[in-house]
C-alpha cells in the first residue's frame, strides 16, 4: 500500500484496505457492505482518489482543523471501482468522490462537508465521534 506523501507534514495516515488480496474461496463482500465496514472502522473516513485535487482540498480542510482522517485511495485498490460505484448509489449523484463518513455515518461529498462546516454542524459531529478534541 503506497503512502500518501503529497505534503511533508502529512497528518493523516493512509489506511490499508483490509483485504489486500482478493478472497479466494470466501464469498465476495458486497461493495456496499465493504463501504459500511470501512466507514465504521475509524472516527473519520475519507474515500478519495490520490490524483484528485478536490480530494486534496478536503484532506487539507481536515488537517487545518487538526483532524486526522483515515483515507482510502480508491485508485490504488483493485476493488476501488466497485466502492466508487456503491458510493455513487449512496449519494444519488454522479462524481461522488471525495466522500466523508464521520462516526460511521455518511456526511456526503465536498459541498455537503463545506455546508456543514459553515453552518457549524461539522465540529460537534467530529467531537462526538472522537475525531476532534478541543
Amino acid at each position, binding site marked *: 500500500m503506497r503512502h500518501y506523501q503529497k505534503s511533508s507534514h502529512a497528518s493523516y495516515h493512509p489506511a490499508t484496505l483490509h483485504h489486500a488480496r482478493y478472497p479466494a474461496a470466501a464469498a465476495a463482500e458486497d461493495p456496499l457492505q465493504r463501504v459500511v465496514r470501512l466507514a465504521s472502522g475509524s472516527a473519520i473516513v475519507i474515500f478519495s482518489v490520490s490524483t484528485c485535487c478536490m480530494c486534496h482540498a478536503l484532506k*487539507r480542510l481536515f488537517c487545518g482543523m487538526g483532524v486526522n482522517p483515515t483515507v482510502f485511495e480508491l485508485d490504488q485498490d483493485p476493488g476501488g471501482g466497485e466502492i466508487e460505484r456503491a458510493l455513487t448509489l449512496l449519494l444519488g449523484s454522479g462524481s461522488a468522490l471525495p466522500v466523508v463518513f464521520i462516526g460511521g455515518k455518511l456526511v456526503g461529498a465536498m459541498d455537503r462537508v*463545506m455546508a456543514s462546516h*459553515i453552518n457549524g454542524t461539522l465540529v460537534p459531529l467530529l467531537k462526538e465521534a472522537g475525531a476532534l478534541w478541543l
Partner: protein
Amino acid sequence: MASTRRVLGEPAALSGISHHLPYSNPHMLHNHPPDTSFGRNQEESSFDFGELEEPIVLGGVKINKNKTKETLYSSVKASAILEMLPSWPIPRQRESSKSGEESTDSGSALIKPDSESPISTKAPSDHHKTARAAAEDDSDREHDDLQPPQPPLQSPDIQMESARTGVSQSKSAAKQTTEKTLRRLAQNREAARKSRLRKKAYVQQLESSRMRLSQLEQDIQSARSQGLFIGGRATTGNISSAGAVFDMEYSRWLDEDIGHMSELRAAVQSHLSDGDLRAIVDGYVSHYDEIFRLKGVAAKSDVFHLITGTWVTPVERCYLWMGGFRPSELIKMLIPQLDPLTEQQLLGICGLQQSSQQAEDALAQGLDQLHQSLLQTIANSSLNDSMHHMVIALGKLANLEGFVRQADNLRQQTLHQLRRILTVRQAARCFLVMGEYYGRLRALSSLWASRPRE
C-alpha cells in the same frame, strides 16, 4: 409621442439615428421637426439633431439657416404660423405655386403638431405631383386626408390677390412672407431627404453587421468542430456565447439589486413589522441564490469567463477570489457594522469567519495542486505523446468548474448562515451594508475610469 420615439430608439448607441426613422408612424414624420433647432423647442423630441449632422455628410447641409429659423419658430405658435401660410390660393399660380403647394403639403403638416391638419391641400396637390412630392412618404398624403376646418387666414386673401394680379400694394410684404415660407419649406424637404438617406445608411449598416455576425458565428462553429473551442458543452444558442449571456443576466441582476437595496432602505427607515421585514430580507437572500444559480450554469459552459472576471468592474476584479467575493473578507468587514450583537451572536459570527477562512484555505490549496499538476502535465510531454498529455491536461482543466462551484457554494452557505445568526432587523441592516459596500466598489471603478488624465 415621446414614448413612441423612445421605443424606436432602443439600441442605446444608435438612439440618435433611430429617432429619425419615421416608418412606424406616419405622425412621426409630420411631427418630426425639420431641423435640430425646432426639435429642441418642441416637447416631443429630446435629442440633439445637430450632433448627427457632422458625422453624416450628405452635402449641402446649411446649418446657418436653421439657426434663424429657430428664433422664428420658437417665438411663434403653431396656429399663428399656419395663419401666415398660404393654402388654397397659391396653387393657382404656376411657377411658385407648384413648389409652394407641395411645400404646403409637407410643410404645413410638418409644422402643426396636432393630428388635425387645418390646411387641407388634398385636392390641389393631386394635380401637381412632382418628383419631390412622389418621393415623400405616402403617409404625408394619408395625413392630409383629414378635412379639418380651415382657420381664418388673413394673408391668403392677400396672396390670392397677389397670385392673380402679380402686382399689389401688399405684394412685397406677402412675397416676403412667401419667400420665407418657401425657404422654410425647402428646408423641410431637405431635412426629410436627409432623414431618408440617413435611414438608408443605417439600414445598410445593419445589413453589413448582420452579415459579419453570421460570418463570425460560422467561424466559431467551425473552430468548435475542430475541437479548438472547449466550452461547447452547454450550447446556449448560436447568437451569443455563454459568457455574453451571463453578462446580460448579471447586469439584470444588478438592476434588481438596486431595487432590493431601496426596498431594504425604506423598510429599515420606516420601521416595518418584523413579519414584513422578514419577507424583504428573505427576498434578498433569494436574490443572491439566484446569481449563484446563474453562475453555476455559466460555469458549465465557460468557467474561464467567471474566473477572469470581465463580468465585474476593475476594482472588484482586484478582489476577485475564485470567481467571486471572499466570504471571510465580507464577514470581517461586516462585524464592526453589525453592532449591537449578543455574545452568542458574536461567537457565532466569529466562528463563521473562522470556518469560512478554513474552507477558503482548503479550496485554495486544492486549486494550487491543480495548477501544479496541470503545468507538470504540459511540461513533461515529450514530442511523441504530446497529444496524449494535452488530453490529460484537458481532463485536469475540467476540474476548474468544480472549484468555482465549491467557492460559490461557500459564499451561498455563508450568507445563509449570516441570516440564521442575525435577527430580522439586524439582517436587514447587514444586507444594506453589504449592498452599499459592493456598490461603492463598483462606483470606485466608474470614478477611476472617468478620472481626468494629463
